[in-house]
């Protein structure tokens, strides 16, 4: 993809983010942080590429450590969000 296409996606996504986040109810701001934490670990994609590629042994091991770190966040972030959201109950 060329730089301008990527930049376009980025700028539009910033606007989407702005409106979606303002629509989040303040009562769920802590779960919002936990889940954004989990999804920002999509950086695992880069880590997987680094660890799967042949060519540089150092890069591979750095990638593997990054995979492990991002996995902590993915599993931990989604699990803790799920745990919090399960607590929110209506009256009665």
């Amino acid at each position, binding site marked *: 993809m060329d*730089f301008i296409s*990527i930049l376009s*996606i*980025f700028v539009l*996504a*910033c606007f989407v*983010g*702005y409106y*979606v*986040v303002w629509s989040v*109810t*303040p*009562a*769920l*701001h*802590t*779960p919002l*942080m*936990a*889940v*954004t*934490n*989990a*999804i*920002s*670990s*999509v*950086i*695992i*994609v*880069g*880590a997987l*590429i*680094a*660890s*799967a590629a*042949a*060519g*540089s042994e150092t*890069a591979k091991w*750095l990638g*593997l450590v*990054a*995979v492990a*770190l991002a*996995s*902590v*966040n*993915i*599993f*931990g972030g*989604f*699990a803790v*969000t*799920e745990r*919090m*959201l*399960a607590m*929110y109950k*209506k009256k009665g």
Partner: protein
Amino acid sequence: MHEAAPVNPWVALAYLIAGVCFIVALRGLSSPATSRRGNRFGMAGMLIAVVTTLVTHELASLPEIVGAIAIGGGFGWIVARKIKMTDMPQLVAGFHSLVGLAAVLVGVAAYLNPQAFGIAFPAGSEYAGLILPVSRIELGLGVAIGAITFSGSVIAFLKLNGNMGGAPIMLPGRHVINLGTLAAILGLIAFLTIELSAPEWVFWTVLVLSFVIGFLLIIPIGGADMPVVVSMLNSYSGWAAAAMGFTLGNTAMIITGALVGSSGAILSYIMCKAMNRSFISVIAGGFGGDSGGGAAGAAKTDRPWKRGSAEDAAFLMQQAEQVIIVPGYGMAVAQAQHVLREMGDKLKEHGVRVKYAIHPVAGRMPGHMNVLLAEANVPYDEVFELEDINSEFAQTDVAFIIGANDVVNPAAKTDKSSPIYGMPVFDVNKAKTVLFIKRSMGGVGYAGVDNDVFYQDNTMMLLADAKKMVEEIVKSLD
């Protein structure tokens, strides 16, 4: 410019779908009713992104990858099950540091093995094997933001977890040092971009300086400003992911980075507004140390005030039509949330309408108090935000304040010289009766200012440990 490998349209589509799943996940949080479905979309998006990556790359080391996921994932899952809800801010800060470090490692790996990431000049070119200029900017910024997120979050974690004092640490001339370091980082990234054969030390220096600046930026910020800091680092972790997304030309990473970046920025803004602090002054640091501000005004206990007992409080609330409970972080420290909900249930049995009023900075991070109340089984439709409930105090019989102080201080509206002037506060003084639980008359809130509400004719001070006092009230309500 990213002409490395022709992109398979199905792969690009899969990453786009993952990105859309993340948008839907955040959208679900607009109400508790849809939030869990939203979270499932988030998980689905992540699964799509990971599987797509694994099936479209030749895997030289699958067993190691599975092992890394199992170790990291297992650890994260256990921590998520065990963590106490009061410790949520530390956990989030800790998680931020991991995203930052992962971004740094990915950036370094890309720097060492640019071919694998498709960011090198193609073979046959004059510069074959060297990293493309645009990718150098993206990589430099990504590594820098990742490193700042990492070291900043580690300090935030240590402060929130109590391993490090909450008091601001002020270095002399820190603004000059910070600006100088920041300028050096940007200058070196520019050099790296323009000079294709720049030596390796330039890249490593960018990395080291970024770790240092993250550390320097957070140490002068005091404990009370931590909600802003945690939100800000949330934002940084997003921008780090976005920068890596640019390097890889990956839609899922770019969309996520933009979402998380905006989310953290908006939360920082909301927190700053709730404390009436400008973002710049928070970043400049110094305010809100645990011990700071005490000299600004110790409570003037020579003014007359009324002391009440648990029985008095129980009697007054039983007679009331509506009681609004204003919890602050002191309630969570005293672990009084469960017994508080019991008190609410008892009052409802007596036909009293019970509502909870939450200030945006009531907890240690945005929305923290709501989670603590939800954990104690307080129904979320009894919990109201500041602007939704503030007009109701005038028609309320009892305002019940537990573990809060600054957020109910009328000086924020009337006293221009007060350090909390301009902060939005609850108008509890308009309620017919104010019941104020406090450990003693000596201590004052974070901002260290006296509170006129203590000395009002319609205020009854309940001096005791919050949990013990509420337990006694519950007994008296039988």
